[in-house]
């Protein structure tokens, strides 16, 4: 019973952890603009992130070492350094977006401007980071993030035409007034939002922080193969409510408040409260994950002592980098650059750099010197290669599409 409960908690954590500000904004934006015509991207993204997270988790549980540590050893310091720099920058920009996301959600409940919330959220993040045990930290925001299921329940409450919805999902078409390049630009943005690189770094490093070994491979797999698909269903729920409530009115999502509007229509004040609670939990969790992932990648590459579980004095460079990254992110957030724009660009850059994350994982997961009999099987390799082609094509198409569509206009 205890084992089942542990597995269930892990899955709930993965579901809450799947959602972040990038997901929340792009799901609502795309649902309002393209209806359900891009649901297939969520399905593609969930299979992809599950495939690569399982590989990264397996590498960490079998070797006891996180991915970037092995990447450096396997590919050499020069190639690995380029990978680390790109990953760090994308993680850090995502951190800015997540900080703004928490602040914007709090603004929905208070009379305080979101910019004033940003430093407060950062201070809270730092305190939680060093005071709360790793597992509890994950579970608090993972479980609270389940409040986001109010979006899924709102689909029923809004009384949709299920037949029409099924048809829109299974026979996707570009809506009238939208061009094919814009459609594919947003497909790439959604891919970036849902295959966020930091999730893989965090999952892999988390397995080491949890001190998982080969006997806990099942835990890792259950988390990934149940948690992420259910998280994907949540993402589709957000797209669906935006399609039902916002698209008929011609609303283009540019504020977090517009993401919440369908839930307000469906459930009123309690809906707003649950949605905001879920958004705060999910984005605060993502603040932790992106912040830690930024420092994990650098510390693991350079061979520093690292880990949230370690005392700051034992991992001084890791701690200093974490603090500096947080301060820099607050500085960028306080420039008052439109936080939704930051979010869209962070997921866009995430998409454009996905191959940097996935190539090394695929290489290491095929190395018998590290994994012995636990190397990738045919299915993992088949899916891994297919997804490598997909994310590379998306990365190559991202810049031309950005220019052609003038940033998705």
């Amino acid at each position, binding site marked *: 019973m205890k084992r089942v409960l542990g597995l269930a908690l892990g899955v709930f954590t993965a579901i809450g952890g799947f959602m972040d500000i990038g997901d929340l904004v792009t799901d609502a934006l795309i649902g309002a603009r393209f209806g359900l015509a891009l649901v297939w991207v969520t399905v593609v993204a969930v299979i992809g992130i599950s495939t690569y997270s399982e590989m990264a988790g397996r590498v960490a549980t079998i070797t006891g070492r996180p991915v970037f540590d092995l990447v450096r050893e396997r590919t050499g310091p020069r190639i690995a350094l380029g990978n680390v720099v790109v990953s760090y920058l994308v993680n850090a920009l995502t951190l800015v977006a997540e900080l703004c996301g928490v602040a914007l959600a709090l603004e929905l*409940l208070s009379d305080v401007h979101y910019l004033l919330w940003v430093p407060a959220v950062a201070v809270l993040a730092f305190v939680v980071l060093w005071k709360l045990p790793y597992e509890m930290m994950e579970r608090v925001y993972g479980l609270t993030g389940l409040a986001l299921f109010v979006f899924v329940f709102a689909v029923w409450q809004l009384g949709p035409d299920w037949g029409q919805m099924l048809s829109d999902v299974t026979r996707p078409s570009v809506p009238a007034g939208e061009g094919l390049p814009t459609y594919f630009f947003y497909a790439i943005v959604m891919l970036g939002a849902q295959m966020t690189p930091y999730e893989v770094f965090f999952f892999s490093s988390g397995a080491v922080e949890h001190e998982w070994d080969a006997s806990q491979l099942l835990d890792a797999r259950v988390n990934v193969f149940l948690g992420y698909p259910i998280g994907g269903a949540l993402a589709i729920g957000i797209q669906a409510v935006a399609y039902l409530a916002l698209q008929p009115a*011609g609303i*283009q999502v540019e504020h977090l408040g517009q993401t919440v*509007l369908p839930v307000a*229509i469906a*459930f*009123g*004040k309690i*809906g707003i409260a649950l949605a905001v609670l879920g958004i705060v939990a999910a984005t605060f969790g993502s603040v932790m994950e992106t912040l830690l992932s930024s420092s994990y990648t650098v510390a693991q590459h350079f061979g520093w002592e690292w880990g949230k579980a370690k005392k700051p004095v034992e991992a001084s460079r890791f701690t200093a980098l974490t603090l500096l990254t947080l301060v820099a992110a607050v500085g960028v957030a306080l420039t008052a650059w439109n936080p939704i724009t930051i979010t869209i660009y962070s997921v866009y850059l995430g998409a454009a750099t996905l191959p940097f994350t996935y190539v090394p994982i695929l290489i290491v997961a095929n190395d018998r010197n590290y994994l012995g009999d636990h190397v990738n099987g045919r299915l993992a390799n088949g899916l891994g290669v297919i997804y490598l082609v997909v994310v590379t094509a998306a990365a190559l198409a991202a810049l031309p599409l*950005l220019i052609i569509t003038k940033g998705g206009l």
Partner: protein
Amino acid sequence: MARFSAAVVALAALLLAGCVGPSRTDRDYREKAANAAESMVSVVETARLTVESDARGNSTARYTSLSLSEGEDDASSIAMSFEVVQPPSRDAEQLRTDLSSLFSEVSTVLGDLRIAARAGRGHELPSIAEPLPELTARLKKFMELAST
């Protein structure tokens, strides 16, 4: 070096993507007008749905107030971005005058809504919002300009 150049191009594209360029032809100007009208419809409809939710007791005072305030800011930004574009002909100048006048009407209603919401006069919102459906209908006529 090649990678650095690519990064600079990418960054420049990112920065330029959101900027409004000049219009050299009537067709291009009509497209800009239609896009601005489409964005304004989004603002007006968000305000309409927010007020409807509030009137049914489905929204908190803070949510309504913030949503209307953001809408007013957006309306002002959309109007300003459109009005700074140089019209390429007399016809385009007339289009600018007509659409700017409509944007001004929208801003007035949104401003009144924001003031009432912030002052805690939520009961006044439905009557202030009455012109919104008609404003949406008029804006949609400008959206059709892109295909003419």
